[in-house]
């Protein structure tokens, strides 16, 4: 024991979390600095980040704190939220999250720390879960093809609109939207339509749609007020005019109702929240998108498909990747990248858990209780306006409206505030008979429940009762005991490689630690069980947390204001560009519509620009991957009268701090444009440089990269935007925020006012825990880790693109093109071989085809970095054997990677390398080995033989 008395401050360990978040220890940091020949982290930052853009002082953040203290602060805020039973509806419903799913999926890092399943071999578990999701929505909607999820119902409806515009044979510019759609959906569709010249006509579908010349129509089923309309004749009328029909449907009701496909709809969309995902004050939730096979090339987002692996066995993969790789990105009509994989998986597991009969039972219970409620109200003299309903009704409350809301609040219930004379009631899975009695009493009605229930009749029109089967596949009919469910979840999770097993060194994806303490508050009922349209006084804790978070994000980025609404990075880009458009318009500069985009940009940038009606002009890059400033100057001058913006990623997509960034910003400003700085690479600069201070006007911040929200295996993402003062009024607004002190003028970009509010506590906790110095240290170590890897790997592979000092930023690119020319070994081969070593591959072929981009983040320890280097060096030797002619160029451990247990068990082994070399190329793997469940997946086969729902039961017969 030391003689010196340590300070209490020291013993309180308020810095403890910082060292747990940052991988390398202090002594390891010194060793690593030695390797790259730099004396300190300060000197490293000086060398890597251009002096002109460096922050002048520390961030305006608090000191770091302990996990216990941060959780206590969050608890204090959570307690200010009021959990009422929300019978508000409008697309958000109370539900019971099956606890086996809550604990083993939502709260399990094996699921939530995975990446988007681009590498199918290490993603079979979640690919199967998402395939289940797609199968479920093919069944429920009666359509042929469902995608892997959308961000929410509003954006799904907007995407459906643009699909109709592309595919419809009616070439008018009118899209009809029924006034009985959810109001927030109508708003999101309007926001989306305006900049691309679509005229949205909102009206009564019963009187205004027939005979209207429109390319598409959006109808809600059941309608927002609960009415269950038979849309068949309307669908026929729209089709007669060569238009298409989108039906926004409630998924629970679809278990009892004729499917949208049976009504003739071309597209069906809707939220899947009520299938076992908490409301979370608006999100994240998955939406579904289903359509006809004929429109497969136009389906937005991702599709999981069935293929075969190298052994000919069934394997899953992302299908039709060519849609994402489509050449003319600036013609894209959708910029969706991340979807809501984790939430889609939860919803699919809810269906696996309950099965078709269980779901129908829940739906029938909700309907019976609603019918009982209505019968009791009517007998009590209350006017219920619905002729038909499933779970939602509208009551004519007249003069008593305010009083009714007050009485409801007294019983800790929220009703839907339609207007001053009507209230809406939407029951859900959580409703009980005593809730119905409470609701009666709110309306001053006393009834005998048993008697009323016995008299209550179904209110679903006979012609719309579901007769078609759904969820007939075995997976929805075999895991209904908790034991079976638990093991199914475990079996799928075990197939996947997530951060809980190994580093995921994906460049530009920032797969850092998602600390448990950051995640814990997400499922606290005070955050999870809040309806997004709950009255303001019930959400004070949320608002306080978000206000603090906005201030933290402003401090980190140098911006003046933040909007938390965009619920994905792509949504942030879109919201930021809309703000730029609105700003120009407000100054009478409506003709400014040219968006400069460097050729190295991420594909989402031009897609976003196109979505807001901007014209993309590509700016060249020089041989080092930097923006060609002379070309920029020429193009900015040429378009001076119409220049709207530049979209630039910083540090660049090549992982370099371009020294000309200030000059680039100045050139664009001088020619009347605004600077959109893509925040994808913010992890290289938080604390060192602030975009809002060195020339940028607006950025989106990928909270799921830099700020610790997990990737969820392909979503949720969160993409708030930070803006300088002059753009603040044009950030996204929302009809529910119109009463706020300074309402924002921009249209909403997603359904909920605060987007994916439910996971914002993660980022709050991260910044609070790390504090001013910890955040800075994280950035510096992220840069150190990348340069350490660049140095170590540089001895074996060429490293592409470095800054003027020979340093990289927070990621490095290694070039395999010469290796491919010499040996035929491709990036794909190296990526698959890394699986045998227990690693997820780095980013492949971005931003340069034939390269690997590696981003270690600050969270990976030196030990893990060294393990990765060891694997890459071994792989280089395996390549050298091919180079030297010692090994057959087509029969070697790289070409046949990854190797499965089944490969080993084959009687014959037709390879010139040993079984041990195949699966234990380094000895450490004998102690801890990730066994890949399938061999290399055949992409061509999967696309040739496109199947995007669960394989037929026949395929399982042999097993049964």
């Amino acid at each position, binding site marked *: 024991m030391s003689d010196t008395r340590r300070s209490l401050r020291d013993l309180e360990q308020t810095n403890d979390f910082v060292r747990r978040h940052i991988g390398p220890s202090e002594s390891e940091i010194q060793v690593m600095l030695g390797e790259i020949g730099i004396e300190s982290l300060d000197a490293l930052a000086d060398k890597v980040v251009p002096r002109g853009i460096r922050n002048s002082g520390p961030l305006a953040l608090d000191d770091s704190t302990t996990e216990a203290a941060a959780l206590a602060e969050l608890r204090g805020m959570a307690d200010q939220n009021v959990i009422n039973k929300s019978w508000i509806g409008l697309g958000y419903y109370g539900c019971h999250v099956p606890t086996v799913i809550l604990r083993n999926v939502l709260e399990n890092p094996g699921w939530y720390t995975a990446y*988007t399943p681009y590498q199918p071999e290490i993603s079979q578990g979640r690919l199967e879960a998402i395939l289940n999701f797609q199968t479920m929505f093919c069944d429920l909607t009666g359509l042929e093809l469902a995608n892997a999820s959308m961000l929410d119902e509003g954006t799904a409806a907007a995407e459906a609109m643009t699909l109709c515009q592309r595919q419809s044979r009616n070439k008018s510019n009118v899209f009809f939207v029924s006034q009985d759609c959810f109001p927030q959906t109508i708003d999101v569709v309007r926001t989306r339509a305006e900049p691309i010249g679509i005229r949205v006509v909102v009206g009564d579908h019963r009187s205004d749609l027939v005979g209207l010349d429109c390319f598409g129509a959006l109808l809600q089923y059941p309608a927002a007020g609960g009415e269950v309309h038979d849309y068949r004749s309307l669908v026929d009328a729209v089709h007669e005019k060569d238009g298409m029909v989108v039906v926004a449907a409630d998924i629970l009701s679809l278990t009892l109702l004729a499917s949208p496909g049976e009504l003739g709809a071309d597209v069906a969309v809707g939220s899947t929240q009520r299938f076992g995902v908490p409301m979370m004050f608006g999100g994240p939730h998955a939406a579904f998108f289903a359509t006809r096979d004929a429109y497969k090339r136009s389906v937005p987002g991702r599709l999981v498909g069935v293929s075969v692996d190298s052994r000919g066995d069934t394997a899953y993969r992302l299908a039709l990747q060519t849609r994402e790789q489509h050449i003319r990105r600036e013609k894209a009509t959708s910029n969706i990248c991340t979807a809501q994989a984790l939430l889609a998986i939860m919803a699919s597991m809810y269906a696996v858990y309950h099965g078709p009969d269980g779901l129908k039972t829940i739906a029938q219970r909700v309907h019976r209780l609603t019918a009982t409620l209505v019968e009791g109200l009517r007998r009590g003299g209350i006017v219920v306006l619905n002729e038909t309903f499933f779970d939602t009704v509208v009551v004519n409350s007249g003069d008593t409206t305010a009083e009714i809301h007050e009485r409801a609040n007294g019983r800790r219930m929220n009703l839907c505030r339609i207007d001053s004379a009507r209230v809406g009631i939407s029951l859900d899975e959580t409703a009980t008979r005593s809730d119905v009695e409470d609701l009666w009493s709110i309306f001053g009605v006393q009834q005998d429940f048993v008697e009323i229930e016995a008299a209550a009749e179904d209110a679903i029109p006979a012609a719309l009762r579901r007769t078609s089967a759904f969820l007939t596949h075995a997976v929805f009919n075999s895991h209904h005991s908790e034991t079976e469910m638990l093991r199914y979840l475990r079996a799928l999770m075990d197939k996947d490689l997530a951060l809980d097993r190994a580093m995921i060194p994906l460049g530009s994806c920032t797969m850092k630690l998602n600390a448990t303490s950051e995640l814990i508050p997400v499922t606290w009922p005070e955050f999870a069980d809040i309806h997004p349209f709950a009255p303001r006084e019930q959400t004070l804790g949320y608002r306080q947390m978000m206000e603090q978070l906005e201030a933290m994000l402003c401090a980190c980025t140098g911006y003046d204001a933040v909007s938390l609404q965009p619920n994905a990075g792509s949504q942030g880009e879109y919201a930021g560009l809309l703000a730029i458009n609105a700003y120009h318009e407000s100054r009478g500069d409506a003709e400014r519509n040219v968006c400069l985009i460097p050729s190295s940009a991420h594909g989402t940038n031009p897609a976003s620009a196109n979505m807001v009606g901007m014209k993309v002009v590509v700016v060249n890059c020089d041989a080092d991957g930097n923006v060609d400033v002379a070309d920029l100057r020429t193009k900015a001058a040429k378009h001076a009268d119409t220049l709207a913006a530049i979209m630039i990623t910083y540090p660049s997509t090549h992982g370099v701090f371009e020294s000309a960034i200030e000059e680039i910003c100045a050139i664009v400003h001088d020619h009347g444009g605004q600077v959109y700085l893509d925040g994808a690479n913010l992890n290289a600069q938080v604390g060192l440089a602030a975009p809002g201070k060195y020339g940028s006007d607006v950025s989106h911040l990928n909270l799921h990269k830099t700020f610790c929200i997990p990737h969820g295996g392909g979503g949720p993402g969160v993409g708030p935007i930070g803006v300088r003062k002059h753009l603040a009024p044009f950030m996204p607004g929302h009809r529910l925020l119109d009463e706020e002190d300074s309402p924002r003028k921009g249209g909403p970009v997603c359904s909920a006012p605060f987007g994916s509010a439910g996971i914002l506590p993660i980022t709050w906790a991260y910044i609070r825990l790390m504090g001013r110095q910890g955040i800075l240290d994280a950035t510096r170590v992220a840069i150190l880790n990348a340069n350490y890897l660049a140095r170590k790997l540089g001895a074996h592979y060429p490293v592409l693109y470095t800054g003027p000092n020979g340093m990289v930023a927070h990621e490095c690119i290694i070039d395999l093109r010469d290796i491919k020319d010499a040996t035929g070994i491709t990036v794909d081969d190296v990526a698959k071989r890394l699986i045998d070593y227990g690693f997820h591959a780095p980013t*492949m072929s971005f931003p340069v085809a034939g390269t690997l981009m590696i981003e270690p983040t600050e969270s990976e320890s030196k030990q893990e970095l060294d393990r990765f280097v060891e694997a890459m060096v071994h792989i280089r030797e395996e390549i050298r054997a091919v180079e030297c002619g010692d090994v057959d160029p087509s029969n070697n451990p790289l070409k046949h990677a990854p190797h499965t247990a089944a490969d080993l068990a084959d009687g014959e082994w037709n390879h010139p390398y040993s079984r041990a070399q195949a699966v234990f190329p380094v000895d450490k793997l004998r102690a801890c080995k990730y066994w890949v469940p399938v061999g290399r997946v055949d992409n061509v086969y999967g696309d040739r033989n496109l199947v995007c729902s669960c394989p037929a039961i026949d395929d399982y017969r042999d097993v049964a």
Partner: protein
Amino acid sequence: MKTSLVLTVIGEDRPGLVGSISSVLASHDANWEESRMANLGGRFAGILLASVDSSNVGALTEALTDLRDKGLSITVETAEGGVGEPRNELTLELVGQDHPGIVRDISQALASRDVSVEELTTEVRSATMSGENLFHATARLRVPASLNTDEIRGLLEGLANELMVDIEFGEQTHP
């Protein structure tokens, strides 16, 4: 009178392939007008335009077909193009899963609707993120005026689920 022929070629890549085609052409007094060829997925594939005396078409076709013995599969189409019929110039961009014979499939589909390929550049690139080998093609086409872009897109997209086809009027291939 001269006849224009469109040849599609596919075979195992090995030295001397081009030579064997050109010598057959030369021995039939045919002229090698224009071609685009590449090694694709370990196979040699190409399309070429040749002109030959109409009286020699039969013999040339036979001789080319006989190259199968040398591991080359060649199909021959007549590119008649309806002399005098008005044609539009279009640019086409296409991305699809790479597989041997993809150029042949595409060129045959185009030839079947009397579309002439003025220029074709193809490349196989590793796809961003997923790393799979994707086939990219950019082509300048001359198309009978009676054929619209939707029909051409439908024709090509009919070849495979994943083919994404983008067609524009005019010569510009990049914005």
